[in-house]
């Protein structure tokens, strides 16, 4: 555990640390400067002192000189009696005195002062003597004058000189002491400065080192983690205790890393899910990309096209594998024209594939490539075919024995008149024959209905005149209607007025047959009227009978399978057909784009049925063109055999 203060210190921000550091360095430099300054001051002072000392020494020497001068002057005077010398002596003497006074006054040393005072005493005695000599000389008492220059005088001179020598020696000692003190001081200062400089450099150097190293380590740690992260280790994080700017950076980095990892995980997860869903599809999935020539495909595709791991799929292989259908060309075209394509029956290796492709475009309309779905529809096609076959087989298989029954009974009736004389036998054979006829009808109806319901019926459209059809049907049903004494009126005017319709002629006829037939069935006597009118884009045909009519309950049951206007199951009038007629008509009419309904019905009065057919227009023709398929109308077999 680090010391709490260090701990606190390390948490300061970098800026603060730098500031503190700078202040410290400045402080150190200032201290250094002050130190230098004060030492230099000291040295300066001592030099000043030296200077003073030197001056003093000079003064003392001057004193000495002056003294000697005086002495020599006096001696000369005594010899020469030069009056000028007196003036000179006076000058020199006052000079000496002033020098002496100056020395005295500026003396800081008690010892020195004492010596100076002693000297002063001696000097004054000497001066006294000298003055006396002067006067004697003036009095021309040379001998007296010369006598005054006696041993006392000499002794005093020597003493004076001695005093001065002492002074000088003291001064010298003082000076040399001072010099040595000074040089020691200077040396110390030099040493001190050197040490201070070293210390300064040391401190600065070390602290800068520590600081930057700490910084660099943190930065390099961050860098290492960043590199780790870039290389793919998304869990790499920066570990730091720093609370300063780098600490913040580290935290932000970590936060960013967490985010990136999260996004990456999300992406990864999505990718995995997407990939898993594509790989788990049972439909073959193939993608081609514009920029690379590679393909991506899922296991289902590989299975369907028999692609092994050793020879992975390529565009060339693709071309090879699907015979008779140039998938590559389809893909290329798809990309060029930006439209999807489909081939519902591509044959490959004894299997049938449904291939559909579409271009892959981004929202900015940039095209990335193509996606192709390949589905093995062999089973479905087989089932379809078997359904097709069922219809044809059923129709054939059912009809054949029925035809036999019908044909044979008819031949019995016709060619064995003798045997048929027996009314019971004849009736029985009649019944058998009728039954077979009815059965054939039922079979036909059932098959027709099945095909209509499964939309296996193709309508062959052409312009049809409703009037013409009505006339044909009326003519063909003449016998039946005459038998029942039912009149049929074709409202030629209205029929004529309506335009031609765009419909399947035979099927339209079938509807007419059904409705007129029904009208006949439910009319004991009276008439059936067929008329038409134009309603919007349709021709509406109306068939009215004057028959029994239907109750509201019975009306509910219309157009449903097997429902007869009789009510319960037991009151079915099986002689009146299977009950499929209206339903089949409904299917036909609706398949051709129209509608059928009961317009009105009143018990005892009769009913009116109506149905609509599209008028022959270019739009309607265009619409039905799309539905044209090559499927046989009645057998449901594909005409491509």
């Amino acid at each position, binding site marked *: 555990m680090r010391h709490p203060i260090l701990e606190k210190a390390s948490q300061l921000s970098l800026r603060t640390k730098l500031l503190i550091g700078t202040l410290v360095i400045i402080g150190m430099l200032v201290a250094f400067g002050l130190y230098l300054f004060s030492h230099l001051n000291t040295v300066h002072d001592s030099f000043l002192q030296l200077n003073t000392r030197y001056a003093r020494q000079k003064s003392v020497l001057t004193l000495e000189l002056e003294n000697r001068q005086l002495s020599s002057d006096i001696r000369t005077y005594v010899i020469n009696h030069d009056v000028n010398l007196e003036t000179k002596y006076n000058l020199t003497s006052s000079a000496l005195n002033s020098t002496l006074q100056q020395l005295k006054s500026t003396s800081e040393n008690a010892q020195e002062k004492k010596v100076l005072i002693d000297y002063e005493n001696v000097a004054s005695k000497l001066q006294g003597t000298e003055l006396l000599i002067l006067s004697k000389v003036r009095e021309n008492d040379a001998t007296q004058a010369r006598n005054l220059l006696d041993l006392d005088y000499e002794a005093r001179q020597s003493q004076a000189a001695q005093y001065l020598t002492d002074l000088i020696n003291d001064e010298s000692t003082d000076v040399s002491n001072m010099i040595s003190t000074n040089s020691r001081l200077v040396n110390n200062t030099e040493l001190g400065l050197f040490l201070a400089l070293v210390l300064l450099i040391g401190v600065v150097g070390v602290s800068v080192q520590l600081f930057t190293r700490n910084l660099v380590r943190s930065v390099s740690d961050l860098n290492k983690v960043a590199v780790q992260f870039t290389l793919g280790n998304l869990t790499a994080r920066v570990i730091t205790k720093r609370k300063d700017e780098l600490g913040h950076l580290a935290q932000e980095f970590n936060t960013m890393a967490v985010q990136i990892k999260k996004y990456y995980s999300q992406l990864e997860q999505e990718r995995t899910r997407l990939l898993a869903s594509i790989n788990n599809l049972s439909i073959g999935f193939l993608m081609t990309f514009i920029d690379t020539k590679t393909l991506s495909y899922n296991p289902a595709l590989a299975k369907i096209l028999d692609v092994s791991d050793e020879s992975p799929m390529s565009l060339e292989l693709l071309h090879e594998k699907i015979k008779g259908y140039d998938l590559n060309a389809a893909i290329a075209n798809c990309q060029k024209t930006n439209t999807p394509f489909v081939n519902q029956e591509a044959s490959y290796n004894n299997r049938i594939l449904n291939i559909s492709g579409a271009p892959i475009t981004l929202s900015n309309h940039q095209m990335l490539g193509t996606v192709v779905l390949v589905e093995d529809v062999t089973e479905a096609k087989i089932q379809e075919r078997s359904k097709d076959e069922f219809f*044809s087989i059923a*129709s*054939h298989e059912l*009809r*054949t*024995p*029925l*035809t*036999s029954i*019908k*044909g*044979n009974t*008819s*031949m019995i009736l*016709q*060619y064995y008149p003798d045997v048929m004389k027996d009314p019971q036998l004849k009736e029985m054979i009649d019944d058998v024959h009728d039954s077979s006829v009815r059965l*054939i009808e039922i079979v*036909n109806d059932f098959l*027709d209905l099945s095909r209509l319901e499964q939309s296996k019926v193709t309508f062959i459209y052409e312009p049809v005149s409703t009037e013409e059809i009505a006339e044909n049907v009326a003519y063909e049903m003449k016998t039946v209607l005459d038998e029942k004494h039912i009149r049929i009126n074709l409202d030629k005017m209205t029929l004529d007025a309506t335009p031609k319709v765009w419909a399947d002629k*035979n099927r339209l*006829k*079938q509807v007419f*047959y059904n409705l007129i037939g029904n009208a006949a069935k439910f009319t004991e006597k009276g008439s059936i009227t067929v008329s038409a009118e134009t309603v919007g884009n349709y021709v509406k045909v109306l068939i009215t009978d004057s028959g029994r009519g239907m109750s509201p309950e019975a009306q509910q049951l219309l157009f449903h399978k097997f429902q007869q206007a009789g009510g319960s199951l037991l009151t079915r009038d099986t002689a009146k057909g299977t009950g499929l007629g209206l339903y089949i008509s409904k299917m036909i009419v609706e398949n051709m784009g129209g509608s059928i309904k009961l317009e009105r019905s009143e018990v005892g009065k009769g009913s009116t049925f109506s149905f609509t057919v599209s008028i022959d227009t270019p739009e309607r023709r265009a619409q039905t063109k799309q539905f044209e398929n090559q499927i*046989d*109308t*009645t*057998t449901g*077999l594909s*005409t491509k055999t």
Partner: protein
Amino acid sequence: MAKILIIEDDPLMSRMYQKIFTFEKHEVEVAGNGVEGLAKVTAFQPTIVLVDVMMPEMNGLQVLEKLKSDQATKAIPVVMLTNLAGQQDAETALAKGAVKYIVKSEHEPKEVADMVEEIIAGYTRNAIPSAAA
């Protein structure tokens, strides 16, 4: 009195048509498959041939083709019999040279006989029979 060859694999049907033409006093020969049928055409030299469309091994259309491509037989009128009322098949048959296309279940045997006699009489080619109404 004509010579009628019936090529039909279903005995029910062949017996029935054999009867009607016999009752109508014609000479009838029957073959149970296409190959036998072709052989009998050569041997029997019928006035008219009735062929069932749906037969195993060689179907009626194939027999028709063979007959029409053979110089010796192409003049003989051929009528297709079937219980498939297929528009397309009818058209194909007629295009290949059949004179008529009859849906067995829609006609009594007598009607068929009448139609055949009519053909023999005049080689009339009728309109395609309409789908079951």
